[in-house]
């Protein structure tokens, strides 16, 4: 009796999740797909964003996510390697770093946006301008590089935690075998531990990318532009981004009825893009796993 009640209750809860996802997808696809033409994904917005496409926003999103990954992955992996392989696990400093990482994960994303504005745009960017450009505003304003770095800090804990888990999963046997062959600790980490942790590290990258592609708050003040007729050409240009573009379309349009189909299509593109980025990383990961699974004996 109790079993069947639980079965029904958990089943219904599961069903609810599926239904919600389905409703969102059906709604977005039904309303977005008709507007999703080649021109929509290759052209810039026009006529006060009531016509044209979203190419600059797609370009900006991809550029942002790539730069973010380039910044977050090495720093995150290096931090995890230090914490897991080198730091004394019982030392107070190690524990403080761990607490800091966990708290970083809990900070609201708008706070990262403000931090990015203060630290990267005004302090770092302003400083660069002062020393290298004689006070001209080049780096000291919202830009692609600052948005990417802000986003990298936001996703850093994800990468660190995933990498640490991947490192823990590498059997101690492997480290002993390597040490017994006369490998230094660094050689062991580089040639034995890290290669085996790659699938887990890629999982971290996937999670970071998913999060980064969908976040808007951290880039509001650090680099995203309301509308730009041209693509960003340098790291200190501003850029358009899909999530921010959805917000702009939804709240700032002069003609709501003309904008609505564009809005749906933009959301669809954002979903597809996030999905495609994830799928790529998942495929890479499963290939890495298969490479030496040894099941072909």
């Amino acid at each position: 009796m109790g079993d069947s009640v639980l079965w029904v209750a958990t089943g219904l809860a599961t069903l609810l999740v599926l239904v919600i996802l389905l409703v969102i997808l059906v709604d977005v696809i039904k309303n977005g797909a008709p507007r999703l033409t080649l021109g929509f994904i290759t052209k810039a917005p026009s006529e006060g964003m009531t016509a044209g496409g979203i190419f600059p926003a797609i370009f900006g999103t991809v550029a942002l996510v790539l730069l973010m990954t380039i910044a977050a992955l090495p720093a995150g992996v290096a931090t995890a390697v230090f914490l897991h392989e080198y730091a004394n696990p019982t030392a107070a400093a190690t524990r403080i770093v761990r607490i800091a990482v966990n708290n970083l994960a809990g900070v609201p994303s708008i706070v990262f946006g403000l931090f990015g504005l203060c630290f990267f745009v005004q302090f770092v960017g302003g400083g660069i301008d002062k020393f290298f450009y004689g006070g001209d505003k080049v780096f000291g304003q919202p830009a692609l590089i600052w948005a990417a770095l802000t986003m990298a800090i936001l996703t850093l804990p994800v990468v660190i935690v995933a990498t640490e888990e991947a490192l823990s999963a590498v059997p101690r046997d492997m480290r002993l075998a390597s040490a017994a062959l006369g490998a230094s600790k660094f050689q062991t980490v580089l040639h034995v531990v890290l290669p085996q942790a790659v699938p887990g590290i890629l999982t971290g990258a996937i999670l970071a990318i998913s999060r980064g592609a969908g976040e808007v708050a951290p880039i509001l003040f650090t680099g995203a532009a309301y509308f730009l007729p041209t693509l960003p050409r340098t790291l200190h240009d501003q850029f358009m981004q899909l999530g921010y573009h959805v917000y702009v379309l939804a709240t700032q349009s002069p003609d709501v009825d003309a904008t609505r189909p564009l809005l749906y299509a933009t959301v669809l593109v954002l979903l597809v893009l996030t999905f495609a980025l994830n799928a790529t990383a998942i495929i890479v990961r499963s290939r890495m796993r298969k490479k030496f699974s040894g099941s072909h004996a």
Partner: protein
Amino acid sequence: MNTQAALSPSESPTGSLSVDQLFVYYGDKRAMGPVSMTIPGKRVTALIGPSGCGKSTFLRSLNRMNEMILGCRVEGEVKLDDEPIYGPGVDAVAVRRRIGMVFQKSNPFPKSIYDNVAYGLRIGGLTDRAELTGKVEHALKQSALWEEVKDRLHESALGLSGGQQQRLCIARALAVEPDVLLMDEPASALDPIATAHIEELIHELAHDYTVVIVTHNMQQAARVSHHTAFFYMGDLIEFDRTQVIFTKPSQSKTEDYITGRFG
């Protein structure tokens, strides 16, 4: 015996290990010692004794693998051909290149058979492809694995059987041309046929290497070793030629153990 005559590729004439007043502590607790003994070069020495007697701890202290264990401390000295391995300025990494180790559970890297054997050579800085290939082949022949794997060197090592994996681990340890090979119950996880292979191999290896083997299996100790050391409760009770240990031990504890009265 004329084993000194240029059998080993290394500079070491004998590869003997002399152990002087060696203690090992885990935290404050004495795990083993004092142990003083001379392990003869180019012979097989077996370490026997009941579980927890300190024989594996002793084995690990011979190539400083104990340093991988948190809270482990070693006192005393071990010398490989009169060169101290614990002295100030001696690098544990350098010690382990001369004193290799094979573990209880075979632990090949999830790499190809070739890359497993080449690993120690590569981290040692050898990049010449022809030289690498020659040394990999030599090591695989020494461990009697060559015939079974020569056509699949670039396949994953994890596809090998348990016994083959253990011989691969032996090949991997031999590839770096150590003087001494330490083996921690190398056949305990294997079936009788694979065990017989390993034992035969150990016998062969003694022509070129000093072999120190920990074993729970007294028949195995009797079959493969020239000398046997009996450990009990962290102490070295008796060390002698294997034949003597198994027929006329001088200590009553040794006799009790080998006749199966405890352990």
